[in-house]
């Protein structure tokens, strides 16, 4: 029997980044096939090629043994491929029925076709136990139910190959169990399912076969009953880098930060952070490991004053951070900076710099009130001097302080941000994804800078999706998954398998 989907030598690059490199594997018809990997492994790109959003630079996609050139998502739909995205494509204030009919209304008068569509939807729900009321309004539905609506849409359009992109990221345990029941029913009906995930437990629970991807390549293809979580974790995360950067012996000083019972809920009451407790001491690097989207970003936002926690408290240098009694975090980051907390944000262009300002202007960003004279005016000569010093010390290129920072490479932009925060001599430095979008040559220099800070006695809390980076920098590792801390271990207990398991959602046993 022909495989439902076969990838042959698929390659795709975005500028300098090779998202998929010579990817080849096949997916058996009527199976549930898992594709697992960390961020940047290339899974989403590959599926986007299958669904017609992108076109591969080279290679072939075969559906049912036939090579197909899928150029648009409409063509993919016509071939029976359906995709349930991580971010739902639903119009929230419309009913399920209207959402399904959108684009397929059947005629100018909706009423003429509504009854027919409704009947068909109920039949599909019956058959696959989807438990969705076609007349319900989408925003009244739980997240799990909304996902089922997306699945319903695909089935309605006669999808035979269903791609689910990180489906359980937004579901509770019960909803995940319901979803898996539905997927089993699909399989019984002969449909093929491709499950993209980073959660090892799920792979083991529901898939028949697994393909492991790392850095754009396929690094493993196994049958699920023949493998184990440990083997998958190893393949997913890979070997850590061998070379070590120089650092002073681990000798942490006084406690600088004490996080107690931090909880964060979003506007719908969904828990983004639960029961966060940990401490941080001067002169140590604590690295938060985890796949993105598991609460690390929110935690750093809270600790830098950009966001308020729902409850809990944080002590910095012995005093409670001033979250209490505020309606929102407006202006709070300035207070935190004054207390001695530096922050290199995860999303550099959205939060950390003003793209249209020059490099020099960006070197005072966040510290604009620290460099003014008593009339409130800037001393440009002093700022320029300081900027020149920083650009030299951190080797920012090109060495032109008046260039718009948006024109610099990612690595150089990051160097400017780090230089700026370091120059303020913080007692604690928060760093989100220190080398995201940074070229390989600059990574080592950024790592060296951070270690130097540590040796000078600054407490550093960083989060990274790159386990190699965690290994290179951390004194202690905090692993987060699903908004919780799943494990805290010292660097000498570093073990890729164990960390992979913790990242994959398995709590410390």
């Amino acid at each position: 029997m022909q495989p439902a989907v076969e990838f042959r030598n698929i390659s795709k690059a975005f500028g300098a980044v090779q998202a998929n490199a010579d990817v080849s594997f096949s997916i058996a018809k009527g199976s549930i096939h898992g594709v697992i990997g960390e961020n940047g492994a290339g899974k989403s790109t590959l599926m986007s090629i299958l669904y017609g959003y992108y076109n591969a630079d080279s290679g072939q996609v075969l559906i049912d043994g036939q090579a197909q050139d899928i150029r648009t998502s409409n063509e993919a739909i016509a071939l029976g491929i359906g995709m349930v995205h991580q971010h739902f494509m639903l119009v929230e204030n419309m009913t399920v029925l209207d959402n399904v009919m959108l684009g397929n209304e059947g005629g100018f008068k909706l009423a003429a076709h509504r009854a027919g569509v409704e009947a068909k939807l109920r039949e599909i729900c019956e058959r696959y136990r989807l438990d969705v009321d076609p007349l319900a309004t989408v925003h009244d539905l739980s997240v799990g139910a909304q996902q089922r609506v997306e699945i319903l849409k695909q089935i309605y359009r006669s999808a035979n190959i269903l791609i689910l992109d990180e489906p359980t990221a937004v579901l509770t345990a019960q909803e995940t169990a319901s979803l898996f029941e539905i997927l089993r029913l699909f399989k019984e009906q002969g449909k093929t399912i491709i499950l993209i995930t980073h959660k090892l437990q799920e792979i083991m629970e529901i898939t028949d076969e697994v393909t492991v991807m790392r850095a754009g390549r396929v690094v493993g293809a196994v049958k699920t009953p023949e493998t184990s979580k440990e083997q998958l974790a190893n393949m997913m995360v890979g070997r850590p880098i061998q070379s070590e950067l120089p650092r002073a012996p681990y000798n942490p000083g006084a406690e600088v930060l004490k996080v107690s019972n931090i909880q964060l809920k979003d506007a719908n009451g969904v828990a983004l952070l639960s029961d966060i407790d940990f401490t941080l001491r001067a002169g140590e690097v604590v690295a938060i490991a985890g796949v993105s989207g598991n609460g690390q970003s929110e935690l750093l936002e809270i600790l830098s004053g950009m966001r308020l926690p729902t409850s809990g408290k944080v002590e910095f240098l012995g005093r409670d951070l001033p979250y209490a009694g505020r309606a929102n975090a407006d202006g709070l980051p300035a207070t935190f900076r004054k207390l001695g907390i530096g922050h290199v944000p995860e999303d550099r262009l959205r939060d950390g710099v003003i793209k249209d300002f020059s490099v020099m202007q960006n070197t005072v960003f966040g510290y604009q009130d620290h460099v003014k004279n008593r009339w409130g005016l800037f001393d440009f000569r002093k700022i320029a001097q300081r900027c020149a010093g920083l650009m030299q010390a951190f080797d920012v290129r090109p060495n032109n302080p008046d260039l718009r920072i948006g024109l610099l490479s990612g690595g150089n932009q990051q160097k400017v941000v780090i230089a700026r925060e370091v120059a303020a001599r913080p007692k604690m430095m928060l760093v989100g994804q220190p080398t995201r979008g940074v070229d390989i040559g600059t990574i080592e220099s950024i790592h060296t800078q951070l270690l130097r800070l540590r040796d000078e006695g600054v407490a550093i809390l960083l989060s990274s999706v790159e386990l190699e980076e965690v290994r290179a920098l951390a004194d202690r590792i905090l692993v987060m998954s699903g908004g919780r801390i799943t494990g805290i271990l010292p660097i000498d207990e570093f073990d890729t398998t164990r960390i992979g398991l913790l990242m994959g959602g398995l709590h410390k046993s």
Partner: protein
Amino acid sequence: MKKTELPRWATGFALPILNLLSALLVAGLVIHLLGESPSESLHILIDSAILDPEGLGYTLFYASTFIFAGLAVSIAMQAGLFNIGAEGQMYVGGLGLTLAVLAFDAHLPGWLMIPVAMIGAALFGALWSFLPGYLQAKRGSHVVVTTIMFNFIAASLMNYVILKMIPEGQQNPASRVFADSASLPLLNKIFPVFGDTPLNISFLLAIAALVVYGVIVWRSSWGYKLRATGLNTHAAHYAGVRIDRMIIVTMLASGALAGLGAVNSVMGSTHYLSLNFPAGAGFVGIAIALMGRQHPVGIFLSSVLFGALIQGGFDLSLEKPNIPQETFIFIQGLIILFCGAMENFYAPALLKLINLTRTSKEA
């Protein structure tokens, strides 16, 4: 190597000029359709507004008001706010100045009366912009619609107030005439070449305001925070800016500047508060802010341009009845369209041109 972004000289200079020329081209076309010669009209305009010294005096007189209106809209735009209410804020500013004058003009000497009146104008202008700013910051009510509403409320309110101010027996719907202490010194005392024009020290004040604006926006930490807020609110929050406060303070400053715009005509020309004295200056401010790209030099040049359009337009309408002054309201709209909504219309073509010349250079 192909450029994907336009260089600074293109966005700061070439595009605005192309946009302005487009607006004038359309205007020229309409003038032609009205049966007049665009080039002849332009000739008359330049003669009257620039070449004739007295005409130039009027041009600069109008420009003084426009500079304040342009500054008002510009400072709000720097924070990403679109203040359409400069007209109403100027109108109410006129009330503030009038109340001060009517109360004190018999008791204070000129050098005290004038600053007091100006404070009144700025205060009342800021009062009128406060609520839209507050509602935007705290309730997310869009500042565009609220300021438009406040324009209409101002019109009704001032209608009521001014009618109450008419002295016994006067026909003119206006307050009583101000005492001499409230008259702004005229510039033709120092520069007699300007002849019998109402050009007064407001012009110098306007220039001073441009300088202060330039210094504050580009050289102070508050101005830095202002521009950051307008360019990227997320990053501004990261940088510790109190966004709510920034919005409110900016709107207050904007209203105050618009209010100051009332000083020129009410204390420099008419010497009484009359119905509808702004006569659209607040809206001209929008065109100026867009055309001048919120930059002090740009605002100055645009204000003089508009002053010339008004002055030249007046003389043009006398000579050519087919081109009444309202033509320049039409031109104003065109400028807002091309310099504001369509500001990047020529960008792709310009980029292609730049890349073509580069590759031919490299070849």
